[in-house]
């Protein structure tokens, strides 16, 4: 498994290039947006970190970002976002705050990112991080050089019950799909269903779905159905192309339930099944008798057989707030 998340570069430059390219993007984004006091703090803090601030000072500067840099939305333009994705594969900082940016810039300004002391300092920081600091530091993981060194820490974030932290560790980058081992990867996919995090934002999800994840998802669906409890609409996304006969039956059963959200998600998921299974679905008949227009559209799309994970975007919950 190639752990580098660097620039899409024909010469195949490794993560180091990715980190520098990301920092450049972040710095420009901050240059454009920070008011005078915040900018002054950021400039001097960054200089201190670059010069090799000791651990306590580094941690204080991360904390002090809360006093100087507002937690307001980044509001990146589509050009900026496209540029970010071009610099680091799968990187999509649309949901980052200004304060996240400032904190990530400080982390990535450390001179020892490539040495053992860099990740060690990050671990220390996680021991005492508040929620906002943890979110920013999890967001930084994908941008480190050789980010696979931070896989265990990332997996720890994926164990977290606070949705904002879970998303920071796992969404909006290719970090999880590239760096988590099989156990951590499968667990994080299922955990996303429990915390209702937007799985479609895990870059590269579809490429790493498998029969085991599909099995776990279908077991969970059965457990929820037996209990008469809610089934997360994203669960159906997890089947990918690996749902098999059992998946097909579960999806068709879901299509017979009253909730339009569940039906819509199940409809989309039908379009992701293996062609031999998809061909068994009576799409035309179902479309004809479906009353809900969104579900009708989903069935129509599924019939075409091309349903990437981001088709599940409409099933997102509201964005979690953490400063």
């Amino acid at each position, binding site marked *: 498994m190639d752990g580098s998340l660097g620039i899409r570069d024909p010469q195949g430059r490794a993560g180091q290039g990715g980190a520098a390219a990301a920092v450049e993007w972040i710095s420009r984004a901050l240059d454009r947006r920070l008011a005078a006091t915040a900018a002054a703090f950021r400039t001097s803090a960054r200089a201190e970190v670059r010069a090799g601030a000791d651990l*306590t000072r580094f*941690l*204080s500067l991360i*904390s*002090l970002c*809360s*006093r100087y840099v507002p937690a307001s939305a980044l509001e990146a333009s589509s050009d900026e976002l496209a540029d970010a994705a071009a610099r680091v594969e799968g990187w999509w900082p649309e949901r980052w705050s200004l304060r996240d940016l400032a904190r990530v810039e400080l982390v990535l300004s450390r001179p020892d990112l490539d040495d053992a002391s860099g990740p060690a300092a990050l671990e220390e920081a996680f*021991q*005492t*991080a*508040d*929620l*906002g*600091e*943890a979110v920013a530091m999890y967001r930084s993981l994908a941008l480190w050089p050789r980010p696979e060194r931070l896989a265990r820490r990332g997996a720890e974030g994926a164990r977290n*019950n*606070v*949705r*904002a932290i879970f998303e920071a560790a796992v969404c909006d980058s290719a970090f999880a799909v590239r760096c988590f081992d099989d156990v951590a990867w499968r667990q994080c996919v299922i955990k996303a269903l*429990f*915390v*209702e995090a937007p799985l479609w934002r895990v870059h590269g999800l579809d490429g790493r779905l498998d029969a085991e994840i599909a099995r776990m998802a279908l077991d969970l669906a059965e457990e929820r159905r037996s209990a008469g*409890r*809610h089934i*997360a609409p994203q669960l159906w996304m997890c089947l990918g192309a690996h749902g098999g006969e059992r998946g097909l039956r579960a999806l068709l059963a879901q299509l017979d339930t009253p909730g339009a959200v569940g039906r819509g998600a199940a409809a989309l998921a039908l379009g992701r099944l293996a062609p031999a299974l998809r061909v068994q679905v009576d799409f035309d008949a179902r479309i004809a008798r479906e009353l809900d227009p969104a579900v009708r559209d989903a069935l129509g799309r599924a019939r075409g057989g091309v349903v990437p994970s981001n088709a599940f975007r409409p099933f997102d*919950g*509201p*964005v*979690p*707030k953490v*400063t």
Partner: protein
Amino acid sequence: MSDLRFFDPHIHCTSRTTDDFEAMAKAGVRAVIEPAFWLGQPRTTVGSFLDYFSSLVGWERFRASQFGIAHFCAIGLNSKEANNEGLAKEVLELLPRFALKEGVVAIGEIGYDEITAAEERAYQWQLDFARRHDMVVMVHSPHRDKKNGIRRSIAVAKECGVPMHKLVIDHNNEETVQDVLDAGAWPAFTIYPFTKMGSERMVEILRKYGPERLIVDSSADWGVSDPLSVPRTAALMLERGIDPAWVRRATWQNALDAYAQSGQIDVARLLETPTIDQSQLFHDNSVLRGQAPRVQTARAQGVPN
């Protein structure tokens, strides 16, 4: 009553269950401060403190937010555990890593327990830290030799250069309130069921001294205590004919004024109707089931004492 919102500036949420959060939210408690204290039996390693401080700025804040309650905290080495001097030294070294974080509104709860030399050293160190960083200080006054302990707490704070308008002295009673007011500090009163200070007595203290700088809190913790002390006491005050403006000051505004000096409280946001971010909950742990907390009329019987 349903229009009133309450601030409980001294409560140990780590010891409370979500039943309490639900009840508090329903009764109108909109904001809390959780100061660092001991856990009922002494900690033995600095790691326990580190994880505890971490929970105050992390998990406990998150937990309270799920019920629409804004949670702030105070960080400090408490008086009881200051007597383990080797450990105390390590804990004081930790303070800079936590005290400057967002939402930390004070150094606290610090002060004396038995008035030992070790306690005084830890108290002075933290007062000095607070002064250097321009922080509010929350002082726990001892339950034994209280009057003397409070006088000493104030005197030492003055010596260390902490301005009196940034000093909150908690657990006052009829014998101590005048000293705190005379010094220009904030007298807070913890309303306990059955012991120490109760609601009825609090009503009379407010009546006698007026609303200037008086603060009511619950200190609800792992012992017999009532997380609804503040709204219950407020209800009793109103029933006993105290001016509603006075009640509002003693159970909301004074605490807000004292601790907003930290710059860590978004006052405008506190005045908004709390929104619970449903997306933070997941279905197998959801308590709210989709409804927002409503403010209910608290019965005007106070806390029996």
